[in-house]
């Protein structure tokens, strides 16, 4: 592996340019020597290489590809597709994609379909910086993490280089390199709910009739409702992320009843919808994403990403490599995945409220105030800006839910694809049409 010692300094430069006015530690301007460690032939060859990176809009950010192109000497092209389309593109256009952000749940669909190849852990520079929640299914303090739903550990390791089977425990290959993760909970309009929200059960409380919303996605929607009905004491689940037929039937029956009562104002599919429903006051309580809550708040409308006593619903992405990659392009893809985990990308998405699976590398690219706010759970020492330079939080504010491990350390269930997903899809369609 080539030496990457100058990496940090280059990062300093780009970050400084990026965060205008935010003081940074001095960096050396060494732009053109970015690939100084490579043999000349390599440097000549890779100029013409283009890595096509496909991902969901949440992670496939053009600005990250621009920086990678600048740093790596070959071209990275970023393409964002809506989630469900992305999954189908893996199958219908896998040749047009080189590397991809694959959500943990989608791993269950693509592994075994000959779409991805496994990545040897030995080639990963920042593997030891990856959080143990992903690599060992435990927290830094040694507590075991929840395995309800598709927990990262269960789909992380592959049995061999072809990556077509999950290994039970750690192996030499991963199906993808952990990249982005977060803990979701209910977003709430505290000015309109009229009382503090403390439990998932409030999602289905008749008080908020006609003012609640659900995500229109069988695998996520039913888990949110399961959190709520379990919290209310209606049902008890063995594994909310992997329900039995009986549990699915009972849950769907309850959901139909709740729907009939007029509880739900809307079912949303996109980020934009979830923000607009909340900002316009159509909805006062719904499960949301962290930056969506921030987006509501930057419009001067009170909105809280409410920590709840039952815990969070976790999700994550890994960085996967398509089967067809080989030779020089594969080498470049491996360079890119290491760059991806080296901090710039982690810091970028941190400013949107998501976490990096290698937080220590991201830390190097964040100011102290940013790190303390997004990861530390401390009051913002200065105004906090998003990756596009817009102030999203005023100095003094504390992040909803607190520090990284307070949030990620309290995951009750992960997003999921259930064993009975075929049955669930059918029943979900019945629910939606009811």
């Amino acid at each position, binding site marked *: 592996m080539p030496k990457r010692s100058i990496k940090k300094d280059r990062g300093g430069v780009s970050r400084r340019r990026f965060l205008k006015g935010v003081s940074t530690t001095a960096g050396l301007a060494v732009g053109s020597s970015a690939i100084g460690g490579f043999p000349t032939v390599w440097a000549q060859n890779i100029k013409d290489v283009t890595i*096509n990176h496909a991902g*969901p*809009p*949440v992670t496939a*950010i*053009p*600005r990250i590809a*621009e920086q990678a192109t600048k740093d790596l000497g070959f071209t990275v*092209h970023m*393409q*964002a*597709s*809506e*989630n*469900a*389309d992305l*999954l*189908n*593109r893996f*199958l*219908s*256009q896998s*040749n*047009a994609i080189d590397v991809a952000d694959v959500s943990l749940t989608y791993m*269950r*669909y693509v*592994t*075994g*379909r000959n779409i991805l190849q496994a990545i040897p852990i030995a080639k990963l520079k920042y593997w030891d910086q990856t959080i143990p929640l992903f690599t060992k299914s435990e927290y830094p303090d040694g507590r075991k993490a929840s395995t309800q739903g598709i927990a990262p550990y269960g789909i992380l390791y592959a049995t061999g280089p072809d990556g077509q089977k999950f290994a039970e425990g750690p192996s030499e290959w991963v199906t993808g390199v952990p990249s982005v993760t977060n803990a979701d909970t209910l977003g709430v309009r505290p000015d309109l709910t009229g009382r503090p929200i403390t439990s998932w059960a409030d999602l289905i409380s008749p008080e908020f009739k006609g003012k609640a*919303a659900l995500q*229109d996605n*069988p*695998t996520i929607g039913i888990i949110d409702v399961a959190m709520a009905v379990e919290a209310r004491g209606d049902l008890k689940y063995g594994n909310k992320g992997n329900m039995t037929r009986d549990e699915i039937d009972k849950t769907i029956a309850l959901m139909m009843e709740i729907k009939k009562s007029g509880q*739900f104002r*809307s*079912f*949303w*599919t*996109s*980020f*934009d919808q979830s*923000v*607009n*429903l909340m900002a*316009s006051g*159509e909805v006062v309580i719904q499960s949301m994403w962290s*930056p969506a809550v921030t*987006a509501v708040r930057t*419009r*001067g409308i009170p909105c809280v990403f409410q920590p709840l006593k039952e815990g969070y619903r976790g999700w994550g992405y890994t960085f996967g490599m398509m089967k067809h990659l080989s030779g020089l392009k594969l080498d470049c893809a491996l360079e890119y995945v290491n760059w991806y985990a080296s901090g710039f990308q982690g810091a970028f998405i941190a400013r949107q409220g998501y976490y990096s699976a290698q937080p220590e590398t991201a830390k190097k690219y964040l100011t102290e105030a940013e790190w303390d706010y997004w990861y530390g759970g401390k009051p913002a020492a200065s105004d906090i800006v998003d990756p*596009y330079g817009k102030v999203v939080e005023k100095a003094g504010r504390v992040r909803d839910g607190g520090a990284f491990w307070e949030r990620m350390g309290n995951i009750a269930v992960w997003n999921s*694809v259930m064993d009975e*997903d*075929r049955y669930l*899809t059918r029943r*979900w*369609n*019945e629910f*939606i*049409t009811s």
Partner: protein
Amino acid sequence: MSQQALGSSIRRPRFDIPVLRLSPRVVSWLQVGPLSVILVVLFALPTLLFLVVSFFDYDRTGLYPAFILDNYRELLTTPATIRVYVSSLKFAVIVWAITLCLGFNIAYFLMFHVRNGVTRTALFLLCFVPFWTSGIIRTIAWIPFLGRNGAFNQLLMHLHLTSRPLDFLLFSDFAVIVTYVHLHTLLMAGPVANSLAKIDPALLEAARDAGASRWQSMVNVVIPLSKTGIALGSILVFTQVMGDYFVVKQMSGGQSASIVSALSTEIQAMQYPPAAANAMVLVLFVAVLVAVLMRVVDVRKELVSRGDVASSGRDTHMMGGDARPWTFYALAALFGAYLVFLYGPMLVIYVLSFQGPDGGVTFPMVGVSVLWFENIVKPGQMANIPVSFGRSLGLAALVSVLTVVIAVAAGFGFRRRFPGSGALFYIAIASLVMPSLLVGFGIGLGFQVLGWEPGLFTSALGAQLTWTLPFGLLAMFAVVNRFNRSYEEAASDLGANAWQRLIHVSLPILLPGILGVGVGAFTLSYDEYARTTLTAGNRNTLPLEIYALISSSSSPMLFAIGTVTTAFSFLVIGVTLWAIVRMQRRRGPLAGVD
């Protein structure tokens, strides 16, 4: 068909015409050839594949070749299926009735009451402009328009028509129907207008002279003569509503479902066999509906039978004299109301695009700024709008040209009965109804299997053509149907050869309709999402980029895009009309062209 070839064939003396005489049947086959090849290869073959797959077994990670009926059994026994079919049919019938009334009257107004050809074209284009703003952006605008705190509710409360906001305006069946009418009235008005164009105003005068009331001449003359247009418009509206997924999902807030929404849930979970079964049942169902409609009005037969009514220049002598009848004012008011309805949500877009830096895509306005316009072109943003706009524009232009050429040729081909015309017609209908996601998936997969690189101007172009060509074909039916063959015969009698007849007689007469097909195909392609997303390769078109944008952010920049698009459209239209008017002034009034 290069320009040169056309030119030389026109100049060629008559006796020099090659004596190669093709039988009419062969000519028809050649004319519908390109259409058939594209639809068979890009639509029928993948559909056959899906038919096979619909009998397969599957689990989360694979398909297993088999012949099982489970997918159909599960589909036909779940109560969800009957519910979505009833609900989709209900929507289709209601929307059909409304668009028929609205579309017919608008077409009637434009064709019979608007006396100036340029004004008529301008008004038609005015109806198109809102659709050049991405459907996704328009859909977002319904929330600030119809929502609890939306503009419409604010207006109602301001006028003291209601004391509290009306909830049913948004996320309801009402909202779904309003949006459908918004989208599809033009699909009805277009074909009807073409049918009306062939009616000689002298016929109406004759009816009046014979003592018929306005109502009688409407029922006994106008409606029977425009039944082809009505039938074609009905097919378009019906297929659109039955095959819809996006509008129902967005406007009912996910509370109602459509036939395709169940299918899309299955595709999201990679459950292709039940999705394929679902699609087969849907296509069959709609095909039967269309077949029933064909029993009432056989549009293909209408093309074959000779036009028995003469059409003449209507620009100058209309309805005798200058006194406008009361119906003019009534219909003008209706048309005005339609424009208000069409532009209502657009006004919300225009206003909110000037939102302040801290504002969102809903009311209230938080200050005023042009920041969002600046953001469109500012580099390093979440989406690259200018580049994807360029791609969409290029693709839409190409699709539009290809659609015009291929659909016009096919439209001429269908003027004769030829073996296979029925099959081709129903393949085109099926291609309109077939859920787009599945069509795109099939084409994408085909490229993958053959080892071809998918791309905007290969696979995506093909996928879009399976969508715009059937539209173009049905529109051409309406266009060709307005055409009186005696002009062609007269041209032949005067010694014109086939090319001369085409270039100097047929095409000029049909030009307004053909341009309509071109503009329609452009609009469809420019805004296409579902067929493009799985075939676009690794470069996004504008709708894909916008959809990605709303999936990770929420910003009034989308509305700024809408405002810029509208301004740009008006500019282009304005310049074009100005050029036409100038040209007409120079040449004097064009006879015979309306």
